[in-house]
């Protein structure tokens, strides 16, 4: 009897895990399609490029100016 309940509990737990995994994937798919997808659509319409697939070139060089975000203590407290 004890074994039966143990097995039942374990099975139930696994079932719970699969359910939450499925819900997670569905939620992520929803975010992916309606979040990322919409931004992608608008960016295509507005011709905004999110990744520099062709690296911008200036004066025959790919080096780009680097803007520092750590010049002061205040700037450095920000996670961006």
């Amino acid at each position: 009897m004890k074994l039966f309940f143990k097995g039942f509990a374990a099975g139930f737990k696994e079932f719970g895990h699969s359910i939450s995994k499925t819900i997670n994937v569905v939620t992520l798919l929803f975010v992916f399609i309606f979040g990322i997808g919409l931004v992608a659509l608008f960016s295509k319409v507005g011709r905004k490029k999110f990744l520099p697939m062709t690296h911008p070139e200036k004066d025959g060089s790919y080096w780009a100016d680097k803007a520092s975000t750590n010049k002061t203590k205040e700037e450095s407290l920000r996670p961006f």
Partner: protein
Amino acid sequence: MIVLGISAFSHDSSAAIIKDGELVAAAEEERFTRKKHDFSFPYNAIRFCLQKAGVTINQVDCIAFYEKPLLKFERIMSQFVYSFPRGFTAFAKTMPSWINEKLHIRGIIKRKLKYLGNIYFIEHHLAHAASSYLMSPFSESVILTVDGVGEWASATYGFAKDNEIHLEKEIRFPHSLGLLYSAVTGYLGMSVNNSEYKVMGLAAYGKPLYVDKFRKVLDVKKDGSFALDMDYFVYHYRMSMPSKKFIEEFGPARKKEEEITERHKDIAASLQKVVEDTLFLIIRNLHTKYSCNNLCMAGGVALNSVANGKILKETPFKRFFIQPAAGDGGTSVGAAAYVYYSLFGNNRSFVMKHAYLGPSYTDEQIKKYLEHYHVKYTLFKNDNELTTNVAKLIYNNHVVGWFQGRTEFGPRALGARSILSNPCNPKMRGILNLKVKHREKFRPFAPVICVEDIHDYFDVDKEVPIAADYMLMVYPIKKQKQKLLPAVTHVDGTGRLQVIRREQNPRYYSLIKEFGKLSKVPILINTSFNIRGEPIVCTPHDAYLCMMGTGIDYLVMGNYLIKRDDNPKHMWDSEKYATD
């Protein structure tokens, strides 16, 4: 002032602590959790650092984190937006950790450590730059950082003077020398973010016949700046790296267990050549631009010891520094150093002169461990007895586990947690592989040599950079000495040597000298003390377990000598559980 540096949630989580200007402790989390490249919150490493500094978290003035997480998040979201509708698998894999952890780093640090003070977020490449320059002996230097990717940057350069660092230029993701190296590592059937050094070792066996093909993939300007043709890669939206076009150009990718062919070797050689040429071009241009003879490097690409060994020869720089944890593990040191010296303007007084920054164990603790498990051992009375006896064991071709003092910071074993053996025995490479390492046949073992003997055995730069102390420089072994050192001479006649100075590790230094008296060659094989696929050992338990699970003959732990054959009841076969 006390600053705690943290690197977490990427790869090689670590912690470091700077107390009144001195780097008191630094350690990677993997050494404690025994998970290679552990990227979880480095709770154990932090606890160790606080303990070593003799402080509680309430006494820490501020915490420095090794990147700006929101900038990185912006880059990752940009990847998904650009690649839509592709990339859902990568999205589903990465998003949960962003939602649960990475977007709340401030909260996580505060909650996990019960910490109330300020947390500073230091850009990834700035943390790399600081980890090198602020630990170097230079008061001014050119800095170059090159890795896979940080927030957006994959390479930066700039100049530093006193305690100020100014990174001037950058190359931005997806264009990356580090990711190119990783992509080819994956293509050659080896693990990405782990086996890049194997590709570097393989390169010596091949001819650079694919350089022209790589020139199509990587466009390099006259100043060394570079951009990738992204049609050859898919890493911006997929977990795998090279694209169909790459495979059309270079042939089918190698599967993990497949034999390594001449084509694979030639591809590795070509990649290494292209990366070296690009680095040297950048570095030469930086010398012209800044007219300074000091160079500091950091980032994963700075672990390419073959390229490093040629820098002083190929460029006009006179002095060169890299710290032992040049990859992401070292950014905890860099972040802490930047906050301490650059943000708070404290004067520089510290130079990193060795890598022994991790935990250590006293003879008493070791004895307690051995007695608890009824391990048979003998005790050496003094240093002299220990070094002469152990040198004899090595001379007689025994493989010795060497567990002494504080663990090394960074990926290399440097004489605190090392396996030592006889480099003069032509069979030693085979013996080590059979007994312990089970490595790919093409990979060489590394030699360790005392500083004053280098010029007798290696064709080194006049002034050997400190980076050689951290096994970060490959140099040619003198032609006439190569036959004396069959076990450490790579196919191209080079060796990835470690240089040791007496003041860094007197016992290790004396052992090498004692071995030299017996063999007439003051050099040992030094390879990392670990089971294949596991992190380097940390505790007496890890070391004993490693010896008993492999074919290491003896373990020298503090003043204790343990012979494997004396303890048959603890023997096991680690190879059954080994990974890559």
